[in-house]
Structure formats: structure tokens, C-alpha cells
């Protein structure tokens, strides 16, 4: 900091008349405290919340009131406080300091605006009328951005301030540049006598160059050249610089010695998380693709380099790596395509499949699950044996994911392992097994599904009933028929009842009409009918049977006084006729 700084800081600013100074001070104090509060709220709510909006509007109003009295005000930034005309108008709390040392993030509610500004070199701020309208939001975002990015990697506040043209905000700062640097190369004595005389020099006209030499280059660029340059600049700013930089690294890796190769592998290893973290999966994929090409190409890489490469690829299968990748996909949302992720994962070793399946099973987002599952499927296509080995995995999520994939890829040899999953404690795993068994379409798979009709979890039972119906597994008819009269189904939720009745109708066909008609239209020896819901389910079951007897049974109930039954019958008849 130079002396001129302190001089400036003590100058009265703002132009308020003496009598109004107290009022202005109160307003400035109010505005700055509000600004600090808004900044903390920005951090707390990550830039978006109705509460933040309310606070920001409050500061805007406060600044508006201040600027009604003065066109601008200037505050000196000190380490712990902001000072207006020699008076402290904002003072942070003393407990917030440790959070700024880079050791970790402090509680946003306790951060000190003055220290944040001071630490980055800002020593004075002038707020001018209009700031509240056009630039306050920008400044708050910028301060929040600086506070979120701690450590050496952050963009410093001064760069962010410099990068933008402010119209209503001015700032002064201390230089990060060396003071007292001396200009190189000047002798300091320009007025020595000349060591020769120009007349003595051989002078020929145009002995060096003449304006005519440059006629072609003079003067301004023409319109076409300007257009070309403008187009080039536009392209330059949209250009994918990553590919250019990476291609340079690959070129040099190919023609460099072992040391350079190892250095480049190190750089690429460091870049991968950066690229993945920013959602640049295609670029990360490019790295892996080129590394594979180089490693398997004609040029022999030195032993330590190959070892580094192997370590790099091994790291990709680490559960933590995959979990981070899924987190990236979750964060990026629709910005990450299935194709990009799939392409990237094609370079992952089969060992990555387990963590990937676990991630797909545990993610909260249906879109992410679909994206990850699709990508995992591509990876598993070339690693079916490895996939089957994941079925007995003690981690239920991995086993469930593997089961689903085994089903989709129709790895029929794994049916036994899938069926064994029906004995797991975790209902989700059993459900996944049922879905997989349905896909496998083998007799042993269907037999296993029959057992699932008795599962403790309703979702599993429903899935099993539907699967058996879809597979038209007739041997399950008896077990379903027994269930129709059972107490459990009468106490079950409607979904399960419908699933069982429809499955029975589908599997039993004409043979099942009698049972279902009895339930729909029959009465007990006391003259009682089944409940309307059970009768409606029976109607749904009859609807699955395309037989005149089923139609007749349904028609008999078409005018039933109970609306639930009448509606179900009507739907069933309609579905039969379609």
C-alpha cells in the first residue's frame, strides 16, 4: 500500500452538508449493514431464496434513501470495519476470522464483509447513485463467489472487480505488485553528444524502406478483412480450447521421453477430476480414449509410464470415483447426456460396474438413474461374466443393480443367482430379482417367481403376479387361485388385489371363469355378496378372459346397483371387445 492510499481514505467524501451528517451516517450505516447481511444471506441460501430476495430489496430501499440525500458515499475498508468519514459504520464479529485462513469454511452468518474486502486488497469503496438499481446484485454475487471459492484456486476479488466495468461503484486497492521496481535499460543521460554525424552516413533515398513498400499493408484493414477478423474472434471465443490443449499434450507425449510422458500422465490425472467436476464428460472421455490409443499404439511407453497409466485406470473403478461421477451427473442434470456418460464409461474397467450399479440404485433422481443405468448397461455388455459375479455381492444395492442388468441383458446363465436374491432381507433386492427373472424368461426363472407370490412385501408380490401373467406361466394358476379366496388378499391394498385377479384371469383363461363369476355374482349361503372392491377385481380378472362365458358373467353384473362394481364391469367388457 502506498502513502497515497491513506491520504485518500481520510478525505471527507459524499458531499453531505454538516447538519445532515448524522442522518447520512445513520443511513450509510444502515445500508452497509444491510449489504453485509445480504451477502451473508447470499452465501447461506446459495444465491436463491425468497428470504434473500426480501433482504436484498431491503438493502436496495435503504440505499435509495441514502442516495436521496447524497449522490455518493465513500467508505474506507479496514481490516475489521468499514469507515465513513472517520466513523466506523460497519464492524464485523470477532469470531469469524479463522474461517478466512483457508483452513475451512466458516459459518456464513458470521463472516465479516470488511475482512473479505480487506484481505483481497480493497481499501476504499465509493457507491454512487444508481448502484442500488444496476450493480448491487452483481456485487453481491461476486462477493459470494469469492467467499465460496476458498484457497489458492480462487479467482481473487480484484480480478473479478477489474473484469467488469462498474458505472456506479469505484474502488481503490493496494498493489500486489512490487513497489520501487526500477525501469530497466535507461541510461538516464540522453543529452550526450552524438558519436557520429548523420551527414556522414551513406544516405540513399529509400535505402531501407519507403512508404511505397508498404502500400499494400496500408492503411486500415478493408471491410472484408474486418469481417474476417470479427468472424475469427467470434470463433476463437467459442472454440473448444480443451481439445487444443489436450491434443498438444498427446502430441508431446508421443514424441517425448519417459520423463515428459510421466509428467503429462500426471497432468492428465489431475485434469480428469477437474473436467468431470465441470461436467465435461466428453473431454474426459477424449483423454481416456487417447491414452488407450497411445498405450496400445506402435510407440512403446516406458515401464513407469505404463504403471502410471494402469494406476490411473485402476482409480476409475474406485467406488469413490464412481460416486463422485454420479454426483457430477446429478449436479449437471440434463446437461449430461446418456451418450456422453456411456462413451466415458466405455473406458472404465469392469470393476467400475459395481460402484456404478450401486450409484444408480441409490440416486434420488429418476433421470440420473436412467442415465447411469443406460451407461452401466453399455459397460456391462462387454463384461457379462463380471456382471454375474456381482449378483452375490453382499451390498444389496450392487446386487439389485446387477440383477436388473442381468435381466435387461438376458444373461440366462445367471438365473439361479438371481433367484437366490429372493431370499435376501432387503425388499428392493427381491423386487429387482423379480423384475430380472421376468426378463430372463426361462422355466427356472418362472418357477422362482411363483415363490415370490408369497413374499412378505406387497410390491414384490404384485411384481411377481404381473410377471407371471406376462410370461403366461400356467403352472402358477393353482397358487393364484388359492390366493383369491385367501384372507390375505382381502386385506391387501387394491393394487395387489387387481394384480392377482388379473394374473389369474390371464393364466386360467376359460377355466377361471367359474371362480371369478362366483366372486362377482355369487352369494354366500347367507345371501351375502363379496365386498364391492373384491367383486370389482373379479370383474377385472374376467376382463382378461376373451371367452363368451366371461362376457356373459360380466353382462350379468352390468346393471349392478353398486357403482364400483358397475364401473369395473363396464371397463372389463370394453377391454374384452377391443
Amino acid at each position, binding site marked *: 500500500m502506498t502513502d497515497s492510499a491513506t491520504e485518500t481514505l481520510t478525505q471527507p467524501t459524499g458531499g453531505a452538508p454538516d447538519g445532515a451528517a448524522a442522518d447520512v451516517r445513520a443511513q450509510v450505516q444502515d445500508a452497509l449493514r444491510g449489504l453485509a447481511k445480504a451477502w451473508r444471506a447470499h452465501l447461506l441460501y446459495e444465491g436463491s431464496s425468497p428470504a434473500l430476495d426480501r433482504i436484498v430489496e431491503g438493502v436496495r430501499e435503504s440505499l435509495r434513501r441514502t442516495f436521496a440525500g447524497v449522490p455518493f458515499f465513500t467508505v474506507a475498508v479496514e481490516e475489521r470495519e468499514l469507515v465513513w468519514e472517520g466513523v466506523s459504520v460497519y464492524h464485523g464479529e470477532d469470531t469469524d476470522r479463522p474461517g478466512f485462513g483457508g483452513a475451512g469454511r466458516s459459518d456464513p452468518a458470521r463472516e465479516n464483509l470488511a475482512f473479505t474486502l480487506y484481505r483481497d486488497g480493497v481499501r476504499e469503496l465509493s457507491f454512487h447513485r444508481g448502484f442500488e438499481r444496476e450493480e448491487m446484485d452483481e456485487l453481491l454475487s461476486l462477493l459470494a463467489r469469492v467467499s465460496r471459492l476458498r484457497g489458492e484456486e480462487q479467482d481473487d476479488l480484484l480480478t473479478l472487480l477489474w473484469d*467488469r466495468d462498474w458505472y456506479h461503484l469505484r474502488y*481503490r486497492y493496494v498493489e500486489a505488485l*512490487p513497489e520501487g521496481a526500477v525501469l530497466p535499460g535507461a541510461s538516464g543521460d540522453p543529452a550526450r553528444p*552524438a558519436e*557520429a554525424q*548523420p551527414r556522414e552516413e551513406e544516405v540513399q533515398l529509400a535505402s531501407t*524502406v519507403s512508404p511505397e513498400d508498404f502500400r499494400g499493408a496500408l492503411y486500415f484493414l478493408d471491410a472484408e478483412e474486418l469481417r474476417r477478423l470479427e468472424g475469427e474472434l467470434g470463433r*476463437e471465443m467459442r472454440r473448444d480450447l480443451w481439445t487444443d490443449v489436450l491434443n*498438444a499434450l498427446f502430441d508431446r507425449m508421443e514424441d517425448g521421453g519417459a520423463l515428459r510422458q510421466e509428467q503429462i500422465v500426471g497432468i492428465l490425472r489431475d485434469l480428469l477430476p477437474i473436467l468431470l467436476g465441470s461436467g465435461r464428460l466428453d473431454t474426459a472421455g477424449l483423454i481416456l480414449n487417447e491414452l488407450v490409443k497411445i498405450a496400445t499404439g506402435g510407440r512403446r511407453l516406458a515401464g513407469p509410464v505404463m504403471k502410471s497409466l494402469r494406476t490411473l485406470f485402476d482409480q476409475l473403478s474406485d467406488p469413490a470415483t464412481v460416486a463422485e461421477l454420479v454426483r457430477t451427473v446429478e449436479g449437471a442434470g440434463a446437461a449430461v447426456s446418456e451418450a456422453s456418460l456411456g462413451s466415458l464409461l466405455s473406458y472404465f474397467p469392469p470393476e467400475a460396474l459395481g460402484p456404478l450399479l450401486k450409484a444408480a440404485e441409490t440416486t434420488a433422481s429418476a433421470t440420473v438413474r436412467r442415465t447411469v443405468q443406460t451407461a452401466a448397461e453399455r459397460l456391462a455388455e462387454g463384461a457379462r461374466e463380471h456382471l454375474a459375479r456381482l449378483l452375490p455381492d453382499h451390498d444389496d444395492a450392487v446386487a439389485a443393480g446387477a440383477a436388473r442388468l442381468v435381466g435387461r441383458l438376458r444373461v440366462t446363465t445367471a438365473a439361479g443367482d438371481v433367484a437366490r436374491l429372493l431370499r435376501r432381507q432387503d425388499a428392493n433386492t427381491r423386487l429387482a430379482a423379480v423384475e430380472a427373472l421376468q426378463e430372463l424368461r426361462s422355466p427356472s426363472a418362472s418357477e422362482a417367481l411363483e415363490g415370490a407370490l408369497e413374499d412378505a412385501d406387497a410390491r414384490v408380490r404384485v411384481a411377481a403376479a404381473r410377471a407371471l401373467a406376462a410370461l403366461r406361466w400356467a403352472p402358477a394358476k393353482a397358487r393364484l387361485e388359492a390366493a383369491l379366496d385367501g384372507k390375505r388378499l382381502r386385506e391387501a391394498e387394491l393394487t395387489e388385489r387387481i394384480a392377482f385377479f388379473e394374473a389369474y384371469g390371464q393364466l386360467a383363461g376359460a377355466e377361471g371363469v367359474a371362480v371369478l363369476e362366483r366372486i362377482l355374482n355369487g352369494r354366500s349361503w347367507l345371501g351375502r355378496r363379496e365386498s364391492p372392491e373384491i367383486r370389482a377385481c373379479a370383474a377385472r380378472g374376467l376382463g382378461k378372459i376373451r371367452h363368451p362365458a366371461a362376457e356373459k358373467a360380466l353382462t350379468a353384473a352390468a346393471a349392478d346397483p353398486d357403482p364400483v362394481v358397475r364401473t369395473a364391469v363396464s371397463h372389463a367388457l370394453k377391454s374384452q371387445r377391443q
Partner: protein
Amino acid sequence: MSDVLTHPETQRGAAQGSPGLSAEDRDLQRKGRDFLFALAGALRALALYPLENQAVVDALNALEAAALSVLDQDDEMVIRYVGDFFFVNDVRLRVDLASYATYGQVGRALQRHRIGQLEVFRGAERGEWTALLALVNSEPQDEEDPFGAFFDRLGRTAVLHLGVGPDREGERDPTGDKGRQIAKRTYAQTVAVAREAMSGLRMGRGVSLRPVKRAVQAIVDQVLTNEASIVGLTTLRDYDEYTFTHSVNVCIFSVALGKKLGFNKHQLYELGLGALLHDVGKVRMPLELINKAGPLSPDEIPVLQEHPAEGLLSLFEMRGLSEVPLRAMLVAYEHHMKVDQTGYPRSERRREPTLFGRIVAVADGFDAATTKRSYQAQPWPADKVLREMRDNPTRGFDPLVVKAFISMTGIYPVGSVVILDTFELAVVCQTNPNPECLHQPIVKVIYDSLGVPVVPPTTLDLAEIDPATGKPRRSIIKTTDPERYGINVGDYFV
């Protein structure tokens, strides 16, 4: 501490993009631009045709309409010309590739009379406009006080609704000393930063990029507000400090060229950062090779040619950026590549050198060729370097960038030592702002025809016409080697 990081005169209205402007100000920017284009058209038409010519009538119609359009929005219009920028009612006009030449033309027309401000009030009539514009087109009447003379002449005409004000830059800092001091400080600090960063990397220390960024920002600020002073300092030559002064010079030339090409502030920063660090790979070269006097041996050449690739790798080791400095990396990597992809390093994969890399290649080639350094005991004259860069395709420079560079430096770049037809010896201190007079720079006469020092040096505009002969008062007959006269050119810029 920075005195004017946010230059008070450049507060309202960004040079580029103007993201923070209100809709009203953006509208004013557009109308202001239309007005300046109309003003340029009217000045040109009046200079070429008689008043009754249809082209003049159309141009004046357009001018009046453009002025009224601004006055519809604001009650009066004040056009200020500060540095290289125009402000309309305090809103700075965006300079881009589609406007910089026209703005420059109007700026130079006003600057000849040291006019810094033009005021337009409601009710300005056709006759008032023609009177004012005719005066602007006329030759300045008083070399000592051109504005005063203009003001007097305007006062004798029937102009009531148009006013002019003096160039406030001149008033604020009549000798330009403050501007030069800031430029000198910026230059010295940037050399120190470059030295610190490169030495740190050579020693294997972690180097923070923060001071480097700050230095580049200061260079960009200087080029935007005080270009002549900072470009003048590129003439400083220090054999021992070559690596660092060269990096700073390349940075200044690149940023100045970027400005000429309409780059915005952020683009200038990225260009400057790449330029300042373009030779960073040399920190990985053996010092004895870098400092070797005389030509390199065939074995040494390939070693030195590794420095662009090493530069790319070195930049991965710098700390202090939230993002990987990709552009700077590519500049470091590509600055010895030729447009036909020859040169070095060799590319196996598809590559089209970046525009930033091609700009820095030109700036680098120019500064290196005109400087005495290891491997080059005798620097080339600047004008010959420019011609070689332009005419010799095997050098591999982008012809369009070279052309733009020449239009920035002029045929005789700043720092060239020239012999005038009076046999006086002069140093070029500024490119002529009139693009049609690139061969007639502003010079400082430092020795008379007998070799006697002129103290203080006399500043001359070589485009100045002698009314008696209708020809320039003085002309350059050749450039010469300053060493022959024992001249340290840098002395005239500090």
C-alpha cells in the same frame, strides 16, 4: 495503491459489451453511435463536395436526424472525447471492429483543434452545423493554442446551438507527466513480476499467478487509457533483462494490437496473460543455452525448440487461477508455429493455431528481431522487420495480423531512429494518429544536423505541411542504427 483503477473518465458505459448498462443507456449508446457515424459522414462529405451537393445534403440530414434522436431522449447532448473513447451524455460508446475506424476519424478531426467536447442543444439549424463542421475541417490556426483559435473563430460565426469544449485530458495533465509516470511504474512492476514468476518457476518454487494477473490488468488499463506512453516504453533495451523486458514488450504489443482489433477488456486480459507468459517454457531450458552469445549449434537448436512445449507444461504448475489458463497455454505452445503448421512444435493431431497465438507470434517476432540479445548481436531495423514479416511467407506469420500490426505501429514504429531530410536525427515517439500518414510519425528531434544534442528534444509531426511549398516540412530519408550514434532510445521514453 492504484490511483485510478477504475478511471474516473471511463466509468459510465463499458468499452465492450456494456453489461451493466440500463436499457436507457444502451439506447443512448446506439443513438450516440449513429450520431458519430453521421458526424463522420458529414465531415467527409463537406470536405469533398460543395454545400449544395446532394451527398452533403443527405449527410447533413442524417446528422440532424441523429442529433434529434438523442435530444428526444435527453435535453442536451454532450459528446466528450477522452483518451480513445467517446462519451455521449456520460455514456461511453462501445468500440468494436465495426466502429473503431469511424470513431478514430472523428476523434482525430476534433483532436487537431484540441477539442474534447461538443455540445448540441435543441434548435440547431442547418447553417450552424455547416459552420461548425467547416471549421472542424479547416486547418488549425494556432499551433500553441489550437482550441483557443477554434473557439475564437466559432465565436465569430452565427452558431448558438452548438458549443465546443477543450480537451480536458490536456488540461488535467498538461505535460502528460502523470500519465507517463503511471506507465513507467506499470512497466517496471510488470518486468519485476515477470522476473519473479520466471525465476520462481526456474527454482522450482510454487509461483502465484495473482501478481501476474494484476500486472496484466495494469498493462491493459494502460493500453486502454495511455497507449502512447506504455508502447513508448517497449523501446527500453536491457541485454541482461532481455527475457523479462521481451515478455513485457510482447504483452504490450499484443494488447495494443488486440485493442486495435476491437477486443473487449476481458479478451485483452487473456491475450495479455498469454503474451506475458509466452516464453515461460524457457525457465526449463539450461541457462547457458538461453544466455549463449552467438548462434546456436545444430544440437542446441532442438533443445531450445522445446520451450513452447515446456511452456505449456509449466503453466499447469502455476497457482492462483480458478480455471486452467487454456488460452495462455495455447499462446505459449503456438507462438513459434507458422500459419501453415510448420515451425515448432510439430503437430500430429489436427490443429489450427489460435488467433491469440498468431497475434503473439507477430508481437514476439517483431520485438525479438528488433532487440539486441543473445544469438543476435545486431538487431534489425524495425521497418525492415515489418517488411520481412509482411513479405516473406516462409516466416509463417498471419498476413492479416501483420497488416493490422503495421497499421498499429506505422512503418516507422515507436523507438525507430530516423534521419530526416534536414540531416537531423530523430526518434519516433508516436505513430501518426491519422491512418493515412503512417509513414509520417510524430518524432522527437534529438540531434541537429551537426550532431549537437537538441535539449529538450523538439517534437514534430512529420505530416505537417509547409504552406509555402505544400509539402511536408520534413521527411524521413532513412532509418539508422542507434548504436552508431551512441543513442539509448529508451532514454527518450522515461
